[in-house]
């Protein structure tokens, strides 16, 4: 009966894992914005997370355009050049992170300060050049350039048999399995090496013994 309970719990966990696998794709945007309107991109790539649901209206506007130039996402946001602490301190640059529900046809991001375009960037997604450009590409948009076993800044931890090097220790169960396998292989190799050394030593000893017997 205890086994049944374990099975039940495992079933539940499998359901949860299945749910996690179906996580929502988002366009993850992280930008450093300076008071002088220059912008640095930290990343602009497809990830998996919950979409940002709360932004305050302000002077800045983020726009996402499709391949035909159609605006598919548009929101005004507030950027505060201030760290909230005791007391609040001014900062420059400020940082904005947004997670926007991803649509295949999102091709360009524009950022305006009031009506002035201060940043425009193609959403690359994938350029198939064999290099994982971690600012713009991820396994989710470009598995060819960013296979799961290569770093792309996004941890995908669920049951694919591949250890994702982006995950924290313990986050991806596949990494534990990989570690175990590697350890097993190491033990096997060490064992073989020791066996070969012993055999060689034994063989040398026997030859010497025979040699000294012949004299």
């Amino acid at each position, binding site marked *: 009966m205890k086994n*049944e309970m374990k099975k039940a719990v495992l079933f539940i966990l499998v359901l949860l894992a299945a749910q996690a696998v179906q996580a929502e794709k988002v366009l993850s945007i992280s930008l450093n914005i300076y008071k002088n309107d220059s912008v640095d991109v930290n990343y602009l790539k497809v990830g998996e997370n919950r979409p940002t649901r709360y932004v305050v209206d302000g002077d800045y506007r983020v726009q996402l355009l499709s391949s035909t130039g159609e605006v598919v996402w548009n929101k005004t946001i507030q950027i505060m050049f201030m760290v909230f602490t005791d007391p609040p301190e001014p900062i420059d640059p400020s*940082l904005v992170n947004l997670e926007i529900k991803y649509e295949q046809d999102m091709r360009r991001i524009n950022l305006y300060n009031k009506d002035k375009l201060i940043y425009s960037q193609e959403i690359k997604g994938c350029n198939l050049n064999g290099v994982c450009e971690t600012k713009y590409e991820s396994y989710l948009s470009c598995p060819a350039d960013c296979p799961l076993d290569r770093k792309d800044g996004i941890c995908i931890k669920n049951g694919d048999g591949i250890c994702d090097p982006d995950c924290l220790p313990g986050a991806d169960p596949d990494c534990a399995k990989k570690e175990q396998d590697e350890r097993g292989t190491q033990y096997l190799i060490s064992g073989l090496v020791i066996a070969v050394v012993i055999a060689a030593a034994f063989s040398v000893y026997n030859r010497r013994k025979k040699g000294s017997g012949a004299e």
Partner: protein
Amino acid sequence: MQDKKIRVIALLAVFSLTLVISPACALNPEMLSEDEYVNAYFSIYGDYIAGNGNISREEIGDIVEYYLTSKDLAGNLYVTGQKSGRMIGSILADSGVVFDCGVCGSGVLNSKCCIYRAGQEPMMYECVGTEVRGVNNYTWKEIYQCTFGCCANRCCRDNTNATTTTSPGTTTTLSIPVTTTQPAVTTTSSTTTTIPASTTTSTTSTISEPKLVVLFVPVDWTGGMDDFGSKATEHANFLVEHIPLKDCPTQMKAINVKVSCDIGLPMNSAECINNALQILQAIGACARASGEEYDYVVGLTDKDVCGATAGFSVYGTGVVFSESDAQITPHELGHEWNLVEEYVDACRCLGFTRADNCLDQYIGGSDPMLPYTSDYCAGGSACAGRAVTCQGNLNPSNGRCIMSYADAKEPREFCKHCWAHLLKIDFLTC
């Protein structure tokens, strides 16, 4: 020692007798119905709680252990029965641990529950919705079991309104304790301490995604992960109890990362603030490396870093940093939700003219911090830059608003203006 054995045997006899005289009973425990077992158990346990017959906690444990280990009765009962949600879930087969509803030692039904373990101090925990709070490092089995001993927002001894499941696939109202720490499975990097993200196979239930998911990340954490779990739980509980989701707390899910995010926090306030963006970015990177999905990230540390700074945030990042007491988390998240500081007349002196929680002289907003005067606060005309000049608005419990400074007068709650603002944010309301 001999006396103790005799007492245990006597108690076992009484327990068996209780079973015998209960209707449709059987002497063989394996033949017992759940009702019979539960009634018999509580007959004895009721005496223990009431202090009748001088029954000790250890003796109760012995009784439980005897029946459970000798006949594997618990396995039969608490897995398969139709009423598994009853306090049959109070009995653990493996360890002789006893759960009960009510504050430790009282047995009065409320949201508090107690765990009695032989040789240890009773430990209080709490049922909020189907969630167990206040216990850390419990195996999946214990949490599973304990959760099934909860009704909505309180512990329960019967299955009225209880969240029960009979078997996978026939779930009625299933909220699953999402714990990723399981025995015999490699430790994972995170554990969910607050429930919902549930799934269901039922067509009748209406379980949705939680409205708010907060990821707690240990930052340069020097203590054990158990300590972190406790601290994160404390912060999560305080948070959900002080936002409009308090009326449906299972709509908030808190996830704890279980590996320290070592970023080398600076030791003084100035360096902290100068590097605030980098710190928040590093915490955000750790959050992404957890593989979890979340709305907000709270970085917590147990080190005394950043000097006098108890926490900080930069609006729009979705990441906040907190070093100290539990009220810091809703304060910093309050900024993410567009609330401004109340230890300074931010609307007048810092330019936040459109903020909803300006200092209000009718609810204490003109009370100054010495050596400043009320002229620096609500209704005044003086400003002192960004200095801490005011006490903040009073909250409905006559303490100061959470958006005031860290050590302001308790009890800490949001003031009515903050509350009205939070009520406008759809994912913070039930």
